[in-house]
């Protein structure tokens, strides 16, 4: 079958790092297919797609589209050629509405000078209608959920009449249900004659959605296969050289003493009708991983902040070892031994311009003083050297942490936090965007903590992760706990999914339930039509 897109002999070396990101790569994509580009982090997938989208220029190689060689010098040229890309990290202007974000750069005009906002909204509404998205064009980005933000990114490209759509790790921030929605949308787009390239390293999804697969490793193409011809472990082998399956032991019985407990924790903000957190109560106990999940925008972030002491609560109590620690400062909490691996590892978890060494001593720098009150460089160097080898961090102690790969940054954070663990640790989205090997490393550490008797709180929107690790699963919906269940065979992703979407609720009166469901701008309204 004739190739729709063919990228030939693409090579790219980054001058700043000397890294050869793409080494003579060939990619063939057929019209009307969903083509999965898989590989571990750093395999060169994103670079290849950035070249296709005109963000990077290749050192060598040619790009042919519908049999014609094209030059793609910038994203505008890519748009013109009918290529659109949805980035892993959304590129949206928070202050603008959905419609405004979509039309940015190709605004509909009223007369020669004026931007026609009404027409923008109408045009975007038409695109939304046609592709059956569920989002309102006049809402501001700051008001919508992560899943909806991704829809906006896709709408942006459809509005630009993209025929070939590139999606970079589109599912990394989505819930199971949102992923299914996305896939439905993608299939819909294929029906309309579009072509899609999807970058991912989640094997189940590859199997589920794609027609063909190109596997990359270390800047080269390893293999091109029809999806039907391979199974997950085979893909995985091609990606990393070995097969990976997550299957961990559950926690030991007994040894369950409450370490940290929340009682009726509530956050109310002025001018917001519904509390952001509403009567949250649970206990994190020793020898246990407690998994908290939910769709983004339902209170996970706030709960993370509350546990970490970064957000004040309006009412309720928080206890640590039976001592009231409600609304104490993050510093006081740290002094009590809170170890915490945050969701936002780039903004919160690390200081990008600071050296790895200095990042490693954030929470413990008081311990590195010599008698004169001055930093003991020798001690600090030994400390960082030890952690770098212990946590398999690929990077030098003296370079800014921002120059490390995402997985290595996460390992630095992990090393720092786990070094100071006393009796409880909080992980939030610990494997977000990481490759399999790094994720596995983190899971091992987490289990190691549990084995040591530490109370582990795992906040994650990744259901697989929750199911694989958590001994107790808590599901949040609209700021409330809607389910708290011990793990077991009957707790499947489907069950959790129903709770996440508010379809089931173990803790509410009927009144609450009905009022929950008629929320007009609900993302998932009319889900199954």
């Amino acid at each position: 079958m004739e190739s729709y897109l063919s990228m030939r002999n693409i090579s790219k070396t980054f001058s700043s790092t000397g890294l050869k990101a793409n080494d003579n790569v060939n990619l063939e994509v057929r019209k009307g297919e969903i083509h999965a580009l898989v590989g571990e982090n750093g395999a060169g997938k994103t670079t290849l797609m950035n070249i296709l989208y005109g963000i990077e220029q290749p050192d060598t190689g040619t790009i042919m589209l519908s049999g014609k060689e094209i030059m793609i010098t910038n994203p505008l040229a890519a748009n013109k050629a009918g290529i659109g890309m949805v980035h892993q990290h959304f590129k949206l202007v928070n202050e603008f509405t959905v419609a405004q974000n979509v039309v940015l750069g190709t605004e509909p005009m009223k007369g020669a000078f004026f931007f026609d906002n009404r027409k923008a909204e109408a045009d975007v509404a038409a695109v939304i209608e046609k592709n059956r998205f569920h989002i309102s064009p006049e809402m501001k980005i700051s008001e919508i959920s992560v899943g909806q933000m991704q829809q906006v990114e896709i709408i942006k490209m459809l509005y630009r009449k993209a025929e070939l759509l590139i999606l970079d790790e589109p599912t990394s921030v989505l819930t199971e249900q949102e992923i299914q929605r996305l896939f439905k949308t993608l299939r819909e787009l294929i029906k309309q004659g579009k072509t899609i390239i999807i970058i991912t390293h989640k094997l189940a999804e590859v199997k589920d959605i794609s027609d063909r697969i190109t596997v990359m490793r270390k800047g080269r193409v390893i293999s091109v296969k029809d999806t039907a011809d391979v199974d997950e472990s085979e893909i995985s082998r091609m990606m990393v050289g070995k097969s990976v399956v997550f299957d961990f032991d559950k926690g030991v019985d007994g040894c369950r003493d409450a370490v940290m407990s929340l009682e009726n924790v509530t956050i109310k903000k002025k001018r917001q009708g519904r509390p952001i957190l509403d009567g949250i109560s649970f206990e994190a106990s020793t020898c246990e991983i407690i998994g908290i999940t939910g769709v983004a925008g339902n209170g996970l972030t706030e709960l993370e902040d509350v546990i970490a002491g970064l957000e004040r609560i309006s009412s309720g109590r928080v206890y640590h070892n039976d001592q009231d620690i409600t609304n104490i400062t993050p510093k006081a909490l740290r002094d009590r031994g809170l170890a915490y691996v945050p969701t936002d590892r780039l903004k919160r978890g690390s200081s990008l311009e600071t050296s790895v060494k200095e990042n490693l001593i954030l929470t413990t720098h008081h311990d590195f003083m010599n008698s004169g009150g001055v930093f003991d460089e020798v001690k600090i160097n030994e400390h960082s050297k030890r952690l770098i080898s212990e946590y398999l961090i690929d990077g030098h102690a003296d370079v800014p942490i921002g120059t490390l790969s995402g997985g290595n940054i996460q390992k630095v954070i992990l090393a720092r936090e786990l070094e100071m663990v006393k009796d409880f640790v909080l992980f939030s989205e610990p494997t977000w965007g990481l490759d399999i090997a790094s994720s596995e490393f983190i899971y091992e550490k987490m289990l190691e903590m549990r084995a040591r008797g530490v109370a582990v709180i795992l906040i994650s929107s990744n259901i697989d992760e929750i199911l694989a690790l958590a001994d107790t699963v808590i599901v949040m919906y609209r700021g409330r706990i809607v389910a708290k269940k011990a793990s077991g065979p009957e707790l499947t992703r489907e069950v959790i999914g129903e709770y996440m979407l508010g379809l089931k609720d173990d803790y509410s009166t009927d009144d609450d339930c009905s009022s929950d469901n008629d929320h007009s701008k609900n993302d998932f309204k009319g889900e199954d039509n």
Partner: protein
Amino acid sequence: MKSNKKLLAAAVIFLLLITPVLVFAGGQQEAEPEAPMVEKEEAPEKKAEPFALAVVVPGVTAGSPLYEQLVEGAQQAVDKYPNASMKVVELGFNQAEWAEKMTSIVATGKYDVVISSNPSMPFVCMELAGQFPDQKFIFVDAFIEGHPQMASFLYNQVEQSYMLGYLAGLITTSDMTGANADLKIGIVVAQEYPALNKMMVPGFLQGAQAVNADITLDYRVVGNWYDANKAGELAKSMVDAGVDVIGVICGGAAPGVFEVAKERNKYVMYWDDNSYAKAPGVIAGCGALHQTKLVSEVVEDAINGKVKFGTGVKLNSRDGYIEFIGDDPNYLDIIPAAMQAEHKKVVDSIMSGSLVLEVPEL
């Protein structure tokens, strides 16, 4: 941390580099102390002893009539003598730097005499004079007595201000087109300084009150010497408060007052210089200090070695260095003849010495 080590190294190297320069410069200086760089061009065809004059402007020449005249007067004198040369140096507005800059000038050893114009200059140069006992200073618009290296000439600014104040008083009590019923005159100053507070403002008010003791003075400060728009706004608010004659002692900010006076048909009094032409029809009275003449004479004396150092001279209007400009066509146009006559009487009585206005202790 790396980058800091790097910068630390840079700092150390820089200091190492600078050290020999420092040592070298010091050594050289000791070898030939006080060795000035001799002006090579001055050497040929000299019959008389060469005479080098430094004209030091404590501030900026441009925009200040007195400093302009200082430079002009010195130039006139120097031009007459081929053996004489001069160099103008401006000290800028930061008084804290004056002494240092003055020292730099004197330390060159190039200049036989330093001339400057400002009541504060004797004080600025006092310490310096001790360090350089051969240096001679001449100060105009300043007073110091008994210092062997210094000669000084002080204008009786009370007289000038009194003349202007008297005219202002006449105008505000008159029925001239711009005058109103309020017995109010005003003055806009850039900043407050001793000569202003002790001679000029009191003299101005005294003159006005000699016309009518009920006249009051509206006194406002711009805050700097250059914000002409602010001066204009102040003038507007004064006019709104009933002022019809405004004295301006605010240097570069004065055009703001001129503009407002023009718009609102009010009158301006101007010190130290015949400046009627700067705002015809608006400046109703101008005093003048004949600094050009004074400086030219003094410098000539200096070139001929005739200046008596150690003296302080107070110059009154009868000495011919202070004057009210009463013959300018602009003045004659604006002021009614009767008023001119009345004003002339007072001016004459001061010039003749029958009305004595003492210079206060500065």
